[in-house]
């Protein structure tokens, strides 16, 4: 069965410290992988997708096919990074969202 796991419900990180939000997936074939973010009182929006290999707001995500992971990373956390983050593999137009990790940046 297709499954995506975000093991941390809440992650608290001090401002300026590195951030890593974990995501593991269980999919047959090669899904396309996304991270979506929801800031307080805003709608869910795309943060980045692995196929474009871009860095958005300082975040990057590396696809590790051997470990079937797609962890989201940022070297130096900023207060405005506080939000809910969802890992979302997509295969054949079927996207499954993880349960999300709430990132809380401490001052």
């Amino acid at each position, binding site marked *: 069965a297709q499954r995506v796991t975000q093991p941390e*419900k809440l992650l608290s990180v001090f401002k300026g410290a590195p951030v890593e939000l974990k995501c593991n997936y269980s999919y047959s074939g090669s899904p*396309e992988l*996304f991270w979506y973010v929801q800031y307080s009182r805003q*709608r*869910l*929006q*795309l943060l980045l*997708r692995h*196929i*474009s290999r871009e860095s958005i707001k300082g975040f990057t995500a590396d696809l590790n096919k051997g470990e079937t992971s797609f962890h989201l990373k940022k070297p130096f956390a900023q207060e405005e990074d506080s939000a809910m983050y*969802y890992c*979302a593999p*997509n295969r054949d*137009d*079927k*996207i*499954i*969202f*993880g*349960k*999300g990790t709430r990132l809380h940046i401490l001052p």
Partner: protein
Amino acid sequence: EAGVVQSPRYKIIEKKQPVAFWCNPISGHNTLYWYLQNLGQGPELLIRYENEEAVDDSQLPKDRFSAERLKGVDSTLKIQPAELGDSAVYLCASSPGGGGRRYEQFFGPGTRLTVL
């Protein structure tokens, strides 16, 4: 650009009553999605449309939920009758078809349903 529009933003009803949610996708987006989001969970797909056609409704509880997308633009999701467990946020999203941006979804603000 206004983005995906949903109404109402909030709805409170008593159980066994009917309720309907409306979604207007971004202009030109052929693909439309309805999601259910329970508290503390990620969005779960209910139904996906390509133009007027429902191409994936496998997760839609068809005994009480129905959806339509007449003319391939706006969409309505209905619950009749509502149950206590239907309390959740209902999200609509749309996506452009074709090309490298095909799978990026643009979400509406959601409708928060409370069933008493």
